[in-house]
Protein backbone atom coordinates (compact mmCIF):
# COMPACT_ATOMS: atom_id res chain seq x y z
CA UNK A 1 0.00 0.00 0.00
CA UNK A 2 2.10 2.88 1.26
CA UNK A 3 5.42 3.56 -0.37
CA UNK A 4 8.70 3.52 1.43
CA UNK A 5 9.43 6.72 3.25
CA UNK A 6 12.59 8.20 1.90
CA UNK A 7 12.36 11.91 2.39
CA UNK A 8 14.64 13.48 -0.13
CA UNK A 9 16.47 16.52 1.08
CA UNK A 10 15.18 18.75 3.77
CA UNK A 11 18.34 20.59 4.36
CA UNK A 12 20.00 17.78 6.28
CA UNK A 13 22.52 15.15 5.40
CA UNK A 14 20.63 12.16 4.00
CA UNK A 15 22.09 9.57 6.36
CA UNK A 16 21.25 11.78 9.33
CA UNK A 17 17.67 12.11 8.20
CA UNK A 18 17.40 8.37 7.51
CA UNK A 19 18.40 7.74 11.11
CA UNK A 20 16.00 10.38 12.46
CA UNK A 21 13.02 9.28 10.40
CA UNK A 22 13.98 5.63 10.82
CA UNK A 23 13.28 5.57 14.54
CA UNK A 24 9.78 6.90 13.88
CA UNK A 25 9.32 4.14 11.28
CA UNK A 26 10.20 1.60 13.98
CA UNK A 27 7.47 3.02 16.22
CA UNK A 28 4.69 2.49 13.65
CA UNK A 29 1.70 0.51 14.78
CA UNK A 30 2.50 1.38 18.37
CA UNK A 31 1.34 3.62 21.18
CA UNK A 32 3.40 6.41 22.76
CA UNK A 33 2.17 7.30 26.23
CA UNK A 34 2.49 10.48 28.28
CA UNK A 35 4.04 9.77 31.68
CA UNK A 36 4.98 12.05 34.55
CA UNK A 37 6.91 9.65 36.83
CA UNK A 38 9.19 6.64 36.57
CA UNK A 39 6.38 4.49 37.99
CA UNK A 40 4.00 5.57 35.23
CA UNK A 41 6.72 4.93 32.65
CA UNK A 42 7.06 1.36 33.94
CA UNK A 43 3.28 0.86 33.67
CA UNK A 44 3.46 2.06 30.07
CA UNK A 45 6.41 -0.20 29.23
CA UNK A 46 4.77 -3.28 30.76
CA UNK A 47 1.59 -2.54 28.81
CA UNK A 48 3.53 -2.59 25.53
CA UNK A 49 4.04 1.11 24.78
CA UNK A 50 6.62 1.64 22.00
CA UNK A 51 7.87 4.81 23.71
CA UNK A 52 7.00 7.20 26.52
CA UNK A 53 6.67 10.96 26.49
CA UNK A 54 8.11 12.43 29.68
CA UNK A 55 6.32 15.56 30.86
CA UNK A 56 5.67 17.29 34.14
CA UNK A 57 1.89 17.35 33.93
CA UNK A 58 -0.43 15.52 31.59
CA UNK A 59 -2.23 17.89 29.20
CA UNK A 60 -5.55 17.72 31.05
CA UNK A 61 -3.81 18.97 34.19
CA UNK A 62 -1.94 21.67 32.26
CA UNK A 63 -5.35 22.77 31.01
CA UNK A 64 -6.85 22.74 34.50
CA UNK A 65 -3.97 24.34 36.37
CA UNK A 66 -3.17 27.04 33.85
CA UNK A 67 0.06 29.02 34.11
CA UNK A 68 3.05 28.67 31.80
CA UNK A 69 3.79 25.11 30.76
CA UNK A 70 7.48 24.44 30.11
CA UNK A 71 9.99 21.66 29.43
CA UNK A 72 10.06 19.10 32.26
CA UNK A 73 12.62 19.05 35.01
CA UNK A 74 15.67 17.15 33.69
CA UNK A 75 15.87 15.21 36.93
CA UNK A 76 12.44 13.71 36.30
CA UNK A 77 13.41 12.91 32.70
CA UNK A 78 16.57 11.17 33.91
CA UNK A 79 14.57 9.05 36.35
CA UNK A 80 12.27 7.97 33.54
CA UNK A 81 15.22 7.21 31.26
CA UNK A 82 16.71 5.03 34.01
CA UNK A 83 13.43 3.19 34.59
CA UNK A 84 12.67 1.96 31.07
CA UNK A 85 14.47 0.54 28.02
CA UNK A 86 12.00 1.83 25.40
CA UNK A 87 12.60 5.22 23.76
CA UNK A 88 11.96 8.30 25.90
CA UNK A 89 10.62 11.45 24.27
CA UNK A 90 10.19 14.86 25.88
CA UNK A 91 8.44 18.10 25.01
CA UNK A 92 9.99 21.49 24.34
CA UNK A 93 8.10 24.76 23.87
CA UNK A 94 7.55 25.90 20.28
CA UNK A 95 10.62 27.90 19.23
CA UNK A 96 12.54 27.28 22.47
CA UNK A 97 15.94 26.36 21.06
CA UNK A 98 17.59 26.05 24.45
CA UNK A 99 15.03 23.63 25.86
CA UNK A 100 15.77 21.52 22.76
CA UNK A 101 19.52 21.77 23.40
CA UNK A 102 19.00 20.62 26.99
CA UNK A 103 16.85 17.67 25.91
CA UNK A 104 19.41 16.72 23.27
CA UNK A 105 22.19 16.83 25.85
CA UNK A 106 20.08 14.66 28.17
CA UNK A 107 20.05 12.04 25.44
CA UNK A 108 16.30 11.68 25.07
CA UNK A 109 15.35 9.83 21.89
CA UNK A 110 12.94 12.36 20.34
CA UNK A 111 11.89 15.95 21.04
CA UNK A 112 8.26 16.97 20.62
CA UNK A 113 8.14 20.68 19.75
CA UNK A 114 4.71 20.91 21.24
CA UNK A 115 1.77 23.29 21.29
CA UNK A 116 0.74 21.63 24.57
CA UNK A 117 3.41 23.76 26.22
CA UNK A 118 3.25 27.56 26.17
CA UNK A 119 4.98 28.81 22.98
CA UNK A 120 8.31 30.57 23.51
CA UNK A 121 8.59 32.22 20.10
CA UNK A 122 5.66 33.78 18.26
CA UNK A 123 7.54 33.94 14.94
CA UNK A 124 9.72 30.91 14.47
CA UNK A 125 9.57 27.23 15.14
CA UNK A 126 12.89 25.59 16.01
CA UNK A 127 15.27 25.02 13.07
CA UNK A 128 15.19 21.29 13.59
CA UNK A 129 17.70 20.36 10.88
CA UNK A 130 20.38 21.99 13.04
CA UNK A 131 19.95 19.30 15.69
CA UNK A 132 21.18 15.73 15.75
CA UNK A 133 18.20 14.72 17.85
CA UNK A 134 15.03 14.01 15.84
CA UNK A 135 11.84 16.04 16.25
CA UNK A 136 8.13 15.34 16.07
CA UNK A 137 5.73 18.23 15.50
CA UNK A 138 1.97 18.66 15.42
CA UNK A 139 -0.13 19.70 12.43
CA UNK A 140 -3.71 20.59 11.58
CA UNK A 141 -3.32 20.38 7.81
CA UNK A 142 -0.90 19.42 5.05
CA UNK A 143 0.72 22.84 4.72
CA UNK A 144 1.58 22.91 8.42
CA UNK A 145 2.94 19.33 8.28
CA UNK A 146 5.20 20.15 5.31
CA UNK A 147 6.41 23.41 6.89
CA UNK A 148 7.54 21.40 9.91
CA UNK A 149 9.18 18.75 7.71
CA UNK A 150 10.95 21.48 5.78
CA UNK A 151 12.32 22.76 9.11
CA UNK A 152 13.65 19.25 9.77
CA UNK A 153 10.88 17.39 11.63
CA UNK A 154 11.32 13.62 11.08
CA UNK A 155 7.89 12.68 12.38
CA UNK A 156 4.49 14.37 12.34
CA UNK A 157 1.40 14.00 14.50
CA UNK A 158 -2.02 15.54 14.43
CA UNK A 159 -2.46 18.31 16.95
CA UNK A 160 -5.96 17.32 17.96
CA UNK A 161 -6.95 19.07 21.15
CA UNK A 162 -4.74 17.73 23.94
CA UNK A 163 -6.10 17.03 27.39
CA UNK A 164 -9.76 17.00 26.39
CA UNK A 165 -10.39 13.32 25.73
CA UNK A 166 -12.44 14.55 22.75
CA UNK A 167 -11.26 13.02 19.47
CA UNK A 168 -13.10 15.42 17.15
CA UNK A 169 -10.18 17.79 16.48
CA UNK A 170 -7.72 14.97 15.77
CA UNK A 171 -10.23 13.50 13.30
CA UNK A 172 -10.63 16.90 11.67
CA UNK A 173 -6.84 17.24 11.34
CA UNK A 174 -6.17 13.82 9.79
CA UNK A 175 -9.14 14.22 7.45
CA UNK A 176 -7.82 17.61 6.36
CA UNK A 177 -4.34 16.20 5.73
CA UNK A 178 -5.81 13.28 3.76
CA UNK A 179 -8.05 15.55 1.67
CA UNK A 180 -5.17 17.89 0.87
CA UNK A 181 -2.92 14.96 -0.11
CA UNK A 182 -5.69 13.86 -2.49
CA UNK A 183 -5.76 17.39 -3.93
CA UNK A 184 -1.98 17.33 -4.37
CA UNK A 185 -2.18 14.00 -6.19
CA UNK A 186 -4.87 15.35 -8.48
CA UNK A 187 -2.90 18.54 -9.09
CA UNK A 188 0.22 16.58 -10.03
CA UNK A 189 -1.75 14.27 -12.29
CA UNK A 190 -3.57 17.00 -14.15
CA UNK A 191 -1.27 20.01 -14.01
CA UNK A 192 2.19 18.67 -13.22
CA UNK A 193 4.81 20.88 -11.60
CA UNK A 194 2.94 24.12 -12.34
CA UNK A 195 -0.17 22.93 -10.53
CA UNK A 196 1.97 21.72 -7.62
CA UNK A 197 3.63 25.14 -7.40
CA UNK A 198 0.23 26.86 -7.32
CA UNK A 199 -1.08 24.53 -4.62
CA UNK A 200 2.15 24.93 -2.64
CA UNK A 201 1.57 28.69 -2.59
CA UNK A 202 -1.98 28.18 -1.41
CA UNK A 203 -0.99 25.75 1.35
CA UNK A 204 2.09 27.76 2.27
CA UNK A 205 4.58 24.96 1.88
CA UNK A 206 7.62 23.84 -0.07
CA UNK A 207 6.74 22.72 -3.60
CA UNK A 208 9.32 19.93 -3.76
CA UNK A 209 8.00 18.38 -0.55
CA UNK A 210 4.44 18.77 -1.81
CA UNK A 211 5.35 16.99 -5.04
CA UNK A 212 7.02 14.20 -3.09
CA UNK A 213 3.89 13.87 -0.96
CA UNK A 214 1.73 13.69 -4.08
CA UNK A 215 3.96 10.99 -5.56
CA UNK A 216 3.98 8.94 -2.36
CA UNK A 217 0.28 9.46 -1.73
CA UNK A 218 1.08 10.13 1.91
CA UNK A 219 3.24 12.33 4.11
CA UNK A 220 6.93 11.67 3.49
CA UNK A 221 7.48 10.93 7.18
CA UNK A 222 5.62 8.84 9.76
CA UNK A 223 2.36 10.45 10.92
CA UNK A 224 0.86 9.62 14.34
CA UNK A 225 -2.46 10.55 15.88
CA UNK A 226 -2.46 12.80 18.93
CA UNK A 227 -4.72 15.08 20.91
CA UNK A 228 -7.87 13.65 22.41
CA UNK A 229 -7.36 9.89 22.09
CA UNK A 230 -9.13 8.50 25.19
CA UNK A 231 -10.36 5.00 24.35
CA UNK A 232 -9.31 1.90 22.36
CA UNK A 233 -11.98 2.78 19.82
CA UNK A 234 -10.51 6.30 19.44
CA UNK A 235 -7.08 4.79 18.78
CA UNK A 236 -8.48 2.34 16.21
CA UNK A 237 -10.46 5.15 14.57
CA UNK A 238 -7.31 7.19 14.00
CA UNK A 239 -5.50 4.11 12.65
CA UNK A 240 -8.37 3.40 10.25
CA UNK A 241 -8.18 7.01 9.08
CA UNK A 242 -4.58 6.38 8.05
CA UNK A 243 -2.41 7.31 11.03
CA UNK A 244 0.74 5.21 11.54
CA UNK A 245 0.42 5.01 15.32
CA UNK A 246 -1.01 6.80 18.32
CA UNK A 247 0.05 9.18 21.08
CA UNK A 248 -2.08 8.91 24.20
CA UNK A 249 -1.70 11.80 26.58
CA UNK A 250 -4.15 12.11 29.43
CA UNK A 251 -6.16 9.07 28.36
CA UNK A 252 -4.16 6.51 30.34
CA UNK A 253 -3.69 8.08 33.74
CA UNK A 254 -6.42 10.77 33.97
CA UNK A 255 -9.29 9.70 36.26
CA UNK A 256 -7.84 6.16 36.49
CA UNK A 257 -9.23 4.57 39.64
CA UNK A 258 -5.98 2.77 40.50
CA UNK A 259 -2.57 2.17 38.89
CA UNK A 260 -3.96 -1.23 37.86
CA UNK A 261 -6.83 0.50 36.07
CA UNK A 262 -4.32 2.74 34.25
CA UNK A 263 -2.37 -0.39 33.29
CA UNK A 264 -5.52 -2.01 31.91
CA UNK A 265 -6.33 1.12 29.91
CA UNK A 266 -2.78 1.16 28.55
CA UNK A 267 -2.89 -2.52 27.55
CA UNK A 268 -6.29 -2.05 25.95
CA UNK A 269 -5.16 0.87 23.79
CA UNK A 270 -2.02 -1.05 22.71
CA UNK A 271 -4.20 -3.98 21.70
CA UNK A 272 -6.67 -1.82 19.79
CA UNK A 273 -3.86 -0.03 17.93
CA UNK A 274 -2.15 -3.28 16.90
CA UNK A 275 -5.49 -4.86 15.83
CA UNK A 276 -7.34 -1.81 14.63
CA UNK A 277 -9.54 -3.62 12.13
CA UNK A 278 -10.23 -6.74 14.21
CA UNK A 279 -13.68 -6.22 15.70
CA UNK A 280 -13.36 -9.03 18.24
CA UNK A 281 -10.08 -7.57 19.51
CA UNK A 282 -11.73 -4.13 19.69
CA UNK A 283 -14.59 -5.52 21.80
CA UNK A 284 -12.10 -7.16 24.18
CA UNK A 285 -9.99 -4.02 24.36
CA UNK A 286 -13.00 -1.83 25.05
CA UNK A 287 -14.11 -4.10 27.92
CA UNK A 288 -10.60 -4.23 29.37
CA UNK A 289 -10.29 -0.45 29.16
CA UNK A 290 -13.16 0.25 31.57
CA UNK A 291 -14.25 3.81 32.23
CA UNK A 292 -12.49 6.49 30.23
CA UNK A 293 -11.38 9.93 31.40
CA UNK A 294 -14.33 12.24 31.83
CA UNK A 295 -13.01 14.74 29.34
CA UNK A 296 -14.10 18.14 28.08
CA UNK A 297 -16.15 18.59 24.93
CA UNK A 298 -14.34 20.65 22.33
CA UNK A 299 -17.59 22.34 21.40
CA UNK A 300 -17.57 24.08 24.79
CA UNK A 301 -14.02 25.40 24.55
CA UNK A 302 -13.38 29.05 23.76
CA UNK A 303 -10.85 29.59 21.00
CA UNK A 304 -8.29 31.01 23.45
CA UNK A 305 -8.61 27.79 25.48
CA UNK A 306 -7.58 25.65 22.50
CA UNK A 307 -3.97 24.56 22.21
CA UNK A 308 -4.14 23.52 18.54
CA UNK A 309 -4.04 27.14 17.40
CA UNK A 310 -0.54 27.58 18.78
CA UNK A 311 2.11 27.42 16.05
CA UNK A 312 1.34 27.93 12.38
Amino acid at each position, binding site marked *: *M*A*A*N*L*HPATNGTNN*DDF*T*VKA*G*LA*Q*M*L*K*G*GVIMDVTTAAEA*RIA*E*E*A*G*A*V*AVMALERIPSDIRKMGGVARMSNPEMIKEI*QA*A*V*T*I*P*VMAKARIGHIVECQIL*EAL*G*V*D*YVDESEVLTPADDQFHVAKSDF*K*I*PFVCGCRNLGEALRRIKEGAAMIRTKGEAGTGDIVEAVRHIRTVNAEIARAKAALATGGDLAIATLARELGCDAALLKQTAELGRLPVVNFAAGGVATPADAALMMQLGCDGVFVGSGIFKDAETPEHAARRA*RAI*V*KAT*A*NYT*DKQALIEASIEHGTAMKGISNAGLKSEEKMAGRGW
Partner: protein
Amino acid sequence: MTKPITVGVLALQGGVVEHLNLLRKAATHVLTSQPQPSADNGIDFAFIEVRTAPQLAQCDALIIPGGESTTMAIVARRLGLLDPLRDFVKVQHKPVWGTCAGLVMLAEQASATKQGGQELVGGLDVRVLRNRYGTQMQSFVAGLDLGFLKEAKNGEAAAAPFRAVFIRAPVVEEIIADGRQDGGEGKGKAPVEVLGVYGGEGGTGGGEGKGDIVAVRQGNVFGTSFHPELTDDVRIHVWWLRQVVDAARHGRLVLNGA
Protein backbone atom coordinates in the same frame (compact mmCIF):
# COMPACT_ATOMS: atom_id res chain seq x y z
CA MET B 1 2.13 -24.10 -12.06
CA THR B 2 3.49 -24.49 -8.57
CA LYS B 3 2.13 -22.94 -5.44
CA PRO B 4 3.78 -19.58 -4.71
CA ILE B 5 6.38 -19.39 -1.99
CA THR B 6 4.71 -17.41 0.78
CA VAL B 7 6.93 -15.06 2.77
CA GLY B 8 5.38 -13.36 5.78
CA VAL B 9 6.37 -10.22 7.63
CA LEU B 10 5.36 -10.25 11.29
CA ALA B 11 3.06 -7.24 11.50
CA LEU B 12 2.52 -6.66 15.20
CA GLN B 13 4.33 -3.32 15.04
CA GLY B 14 7.33 -1.63 13.40
CA GLY B 15 8.86 -1.46 9.92
CA VAL B 16 6.49 -3.84 8.13
CA VAL B 17 5.70 -1.99 4.89
CA GLU B 18 9.41 -1.25 4.38
CA HIS B 19 10.24 -4.97 4.33
CA LEU B 20 7.29 -5.82 2.09
CA ASN B 21 8.35 -3.16 -0.44
CA LEU B 22 11.94 -4.35 -0.50
CA LEU B 23 10.86 -8.01 -0.72
CA ARG B 24 8.79 -7.19 -3.81
CA LYS B 25 11.78 -5.46 -5.38
CA ALA B 26 14.05 -8.36 -4.42
CA ALA B 27 11.61 -10.87 -5.88
CA THR B 28 11.93 -9.37 -9.34
CA HIS B 29 15.72 -9.73 -9.09
CA VAL B 30 15.44 -13.34 -7.96
CA LEU B 31 12.85 -14.26 -10.59
CA THR B 32 14.78 -12.73 -13.49
CA SER B 33 18.07 -14.38 -12.50
CA GLN B 34 16.70 -17.76 -11.42
CA PRO B 35 17.19 -20.57 -13.94
CA GLN B 36 13.72 -21.70 -14.84
CA PRO B 37 14.03 -24.80 -17.01
CA SER B 38 10.33 -25.22 -17.61
CA ALA B 39 7.10 -23.47 -16.89
CA ASP B 40 5.92 -25.97 -14.33
CA ASN B 41 9.21 -25.69 -12.48
CA GLY B 42 8.87 -21.92 -12.18
CA ILE B 43 8.67 -20.05 -8.93
CA ASP B 44 6.47 -17.30 -7.73
CA PHE B 45 6.22 -15.38 -4.46
CA ALA B 46 3.40 -14.17 -2.25
CA PHE B 47 4.17 -11.64 0.48
CA ILE B 48 1.78 -11.29 3.40
CA GLU B 49 1.45 -9.52 6.74
CA VAL B 50 1.27 -11.91 9.67
CA ARG B 51 -0.81 -11.08 12.75
CA THR B 52 -2.39 -14.45 13.55
CA ALA B 53 -1.38 -18.10 13.89
CA PRO B 54 -3.40 -19.14 10.77
CA GLN B 55 -1.55 -16.49 8.73
CA LEU B 56 1.77 -17.77 10.07
CA ALA B 57 0.80 -21.32 9.11
CA GLN B 58 0.53 -20.20 5.46
CA CYS B 59 4.13 -19.02 5.42
CA ASP B 60 7.19 -20.77 4.01
CA ALA B 61 9.46 -18.13 5.52
CA LEU B 62 9.16 -15.14 7.84
CA ILE B 63 10.76 -11.76 8.53
CA ILE B 64 10.51 -10.27 12.00
CA PRO B 65 10.98 -6.55 11.34
CA GLY B 66 12.51 -3.75 13.34
CA GLY B 67 10.39 -2.09 15.99
CA GLU B 68 10.35 -2.26 19.76
CA SER B 69 11.15 -5.80 20.86
CA THR B 70 9.47 -5.36 24.27
CA THR B 71 6.26 -4.30 22.55
CA MET B 72 6.42 -7.12 20.01
CA ALA B 73 6.96 -9.70 22.75
CA ILE B 74 4.06 -8.36 24.82
CA VAL B 75 1.69 -8.15 21.85
CA ALA B 76 2.75 -11.60 20.55
CA ARG B 77 2.08 -13.10 23.97
CA ARG B 78 -1.35 -11.52 24.18
CA LEU B 79 -2.27 -12.71 20.69
CA GLY B 80 -1.09 -16.26 21.45
CA LEU B 81 1.62 -16.05 18.78
CA LEU B 82 4.77 -16.79 20.79
CA ASP B 83 4.42 -20.57 20.75
CA PRO B 84 3.44 -20.77 17.06
CA LEU B 85 6.49 -18.59 16.30
CA ARG B 86 8.77 -20.88 18.31
CA ASP B 87 7.35 -23.87 16.49
CA PHE B 88 7.91 -22.16 13.11
CA VAL B 89 11.55 -21.37 13.92
CA LYS B 90 12.70 -24.31 16.03
CA VAL B 91 10.52 -27.27 15.10
CA GLN B 92 9.61 -26.64 11.47
CA HIS B 93 13.02 -24.97 10.88
CA LYS B 94 11.61 -22.61 8.27
CA PRO B 95 13.79 -19.69 7.13
CA VAL B 96 13.43 -16.70 9.43
CA TRP B 97 15.18 -13.34 9.35
CA GLY B 98 15.06 -10.78 12.13
CA THR B 99 16.22 -7.17 11.78
CA CYS B 100 17.09 -5.17 14.92
CA ALA B 101 14.14 -5.92 17.24
CA GLY B 102 13.66 -9.09 15.15
CA LEU B 103 17.23 -10.14 15.98
CA VAL B 104 16.45 -9.63 19.67
CA MET B 105 13.31 -11.78 19.33
CA LEU B 106 15.28 -14.57 17.64
CA ALA B 107 18.04 -14.71 20.25
CA GLU B 108 17.98 -17.34 22.99
CA GLN B 109 19.06 -14.72 25.52
CA ALA B 110 18.99 -10.93 25.76
CA SER B 111 20.60 -8.50 28.16
CA ALA B 112 19.75 -4.88 28.99
CA THR B 113 16.09 -5.82 28.83
CA LYS B 114 13.31 -4.10 30.75
CA GLN B 115 12.94 -4.83 34.46
CA GLY B 116 11.82 -8.43 34.82
CA GLY B 117 13.23 -9.38 31.39
CA GLN B 118 11.36 -9.98 28.17
CA GLU B 119 10.05 -13.02 26.36
CA LEU B 120 11.89 -14.22 23.26
CA VAL B 121 11.16 -16.56 20.38
CA GLY B 122 14.75 -17.85 20.27
CA GLY B 123 16.44 -19.95 17.62
CA LEU B 124 19.86 -18.31 17.58
CA ASP B 125 22.24 -19.59 20.26
CA VAL B 126 23.43 -16.11 21.08
CA ARG B 127 22.96 -13.47 23.73
CA VAL B 128 22.13 -10.05 22.34
CA LEU B 129 22.82 -6.78 24.08
CA ARG B 130 19.96 -4.35 23.53
CA ASN B 131 20.68 -0.69 22.78
CA ARG B 132 24.38 -1.45 22.45
CA TYR B 133 25.30 2.05 21.31
CA GLY B 134 22.97 3.99 23.62
CA THR B 135 20.03 6.22 22.82
CA GLN B 136 18.87 7.65 19.50
CA MET B 137 21.68 10.22 19.73
CA GLN B 138 24.11 7.33 19.12
CA SER B 139 22.20 5.89 16.17
CA PHE B 140 24.19 5.96 12.93
CA VAL B 141 24.75 4.78 9.36
CA ALA B 142 27.95 2.91 8.50
CA GLY B 143 29.34 1.08 5.50
CA LEU B 144 29.74 -2.65 6.21
CA ASP B 145 31.78 -5.14 4.21
CA LEU B 146 29.57 -8.19 4.07
CA GLY B 147 31.40 -11.18 2.64
CA PHE B 148 28.23 -13.15 2.00
CA LEU B 149 27.09 -10.58 -0.55
CA LYS B 150 30.23 -11.29 -2.54
CA GLU B 151 29.54 -15.03 -2.51
CA ALA B 152 26.10 -14.35 -3.78
CA LYS B 153 27.51 -12.48 -6.76
CA ASN B 154 29.39 -15.57 -7.97
CA GLY B 155 32.88 -14.19 -8.18
CA GLU B 156 32.01 -10.79 -9.58
CA ALA B 157 34.05 -7.84 -8.45
CA ALA B 158 33.94 -7.16 -4.70
CA ALA B 159 30.56 -5.91 -3.57
CA ALA B 160 30.29 -2.31 -2.47
CA PRO B 161 29.94 -1.76 1.30
CA PHE B 162 26.39 -2.04 2.56
CA ARG B 163 25.05 1.24 4.00
CA ALA B 164 23.81 -0.22 7.26
CA VAL B 165 21.35 1.82 9.35
CA PHE B 166 21.74 1.22 13.09
CA ILE B 167 18.90 2.61 15.21
CA ARG B 168 19.16 2.02 18.95
CA ALA B 169 20.66 -1.19 17.68
CA PRO B 170 21.37 -4.43 19.52
CA VAL B 171 24.49 -6.52 18.85
CA VAL B 172 25.39 -10.13 19.53
CA GLU B 173 27.47 -9.94 22.68
CA GLU B 174 28.13 -13.64 23.02
CA ILE B 175 27.71 -16.84 21.11
CA ILE B 176 26.42 -19.38 23.57
CA ALA B 177 28.67 -22.39 22.98
CA ASP B 178 26.01 -24.93 23.81
CA GLY B 179 22.67 -23.24 24.03
CA ARG B 180 20.81 -26.36 25.05
CA GLN B 181 21.12 -28.39 28.20
CA ASP B 182 19.83 -31.66 26.80
CA GLY B 183 21.52 -33.41 23.91
CA GLY B 184 18.20 -34.23 22.26
CA GLU B 185 16.79 -31.44 20.15
CA GLY B 186 20.06 -29.55 20.01
CA LYS B 187 22.02 -32.41 18.54
CA GLY B 188 23.36 -31.77 15.09
CA LYS B 189 22.32 -28.15 15.29
CA ALA B 190 24.13 -25.90 12.85
CA PRO B 191 26.86 -23.71 14.32
CA VAL B 192 26.41 -19.97 14.71
CA GLU B 193 28.16 -18.20 11.80
CA VAL B 194 29.27 -14.61 12.18
CA LEU B 195 28.37 -12.91 8.88
CA GLY B 196 28.98 -9.28 9.72
CA VAL B 197 31.11 -7.25 12.12
CA TYR B 198 31.05 -3.51 12.74
CA GLY B 199 33.85 -1.35 14.10
CA GLY B 200 37.07 -2.28 15.77
CA GLU B 201 37.79 -1.46 19.34
CA GLY B 202 36.05 -2.72 22.43
CA GLY B 203 33.55 -4.73 20.47
CA THR B 204 31.87 -8.02 21.16
CA GLY B 205 33.18 -9.93 18.12
CA GLY B 206 34.93 -12.99 19.48
CA GLY B 207 35.96 -11.07 22.57
CA GLU B 208 39.19 -10.06 20.86
CA GLY B 209 38.46 -6.43 20.21
CA LYS B 210 37.46 -7.23 16.66
CA GLY B 211 34.31 -5.19 16.57
CA ASP B 212 30.66 -5.94 17.23
CA ILE B 213 28.83 -8.89 15.73
CA VAL B 214 26.00 -7.39 13.71
CA ALA B 215 24.94 -10.24 11.40
CA VAL B 216 24.66 -13.91 12.30
CA ARG B 217 23.17 -17.08 10.89
CA GLN B 218 22.50 -20.44 12.48
CA GLY B 219 20.88 -22.92 10.16
CA ASN B 220 17.51 -21.52 9.15
CA VAL B 221 17.75 -18.42 11.35
CA PHE B 222 19.37 -15.18 10.19
CA GLY B 223 19.64 -11.96 12.16
CA THR B 224 20.97 -8.45 11.55
CA SER B 225 21.43 -5.60 14.03
CA PHE B 226 20.75 -3.06 11.31
CA HIS B 227 17.85 -2.19 9.01
CA PRO B 228 18.32 -3.05 5.31
CA GLU B 229 14.62 -2.18 4.97
CA LEU B 230 15.40 1.49 5.62
CA THR B 231 17.54 1.65 2.49
CA ASP B 232 16.96 1.09 -1.22
CA ASP B 233 19.70 -1.55 -1.24
CA VAL B 234 18.04 -4.80 -2.18
CA ARG B 235 21.09 -7.08 -1.95
CA ILE B 236 20.47 -8.70 1.44
CA HIS B 237 16.81 -9.30 0.64
CA VAL B 238 17.82 -10.94 -2.66
CA TRP B 239 20.44 -13.07 -0.90
CA TRP B 240 17.93 -14.19 1.74
CA LEU B 241 15.10 -14.84 -0.75
CA ARG B 242 17.39 -17.13 -2.76
CA GLN B 243 17.88 -19.22 0.37
CA VAL B 244 14.15 -19.23 0.91
CA VAL B 245 13.71 -20.58 -2.62
CA ASP B 246 16.24 -23.33 -1.94
CA ALA B 247 14.55 -24.22 1.32
CA ALA B 248 11.15 -24.39 -0.33
CA ARG B 249 12.50 -26.57 -3.15
CA HIS B 250 14.37 -29.00 -0.96
CA GLY B 251 12.07 -28.95 2.01
CA ARG B 252 14.94 -27.62 4.09
CA LEU B 253 17.49 -24.89 4.01
CA VAL B 254 20.57 -25.58 1.93
CA LEU B 255 23.34 -23.30 3.07
CA ASN B 256 25.61 -21.51 0.66
CA GLY B 257 28.89 -23.33 0.38
CA ALA B 258 27.80 -26.12 2.71
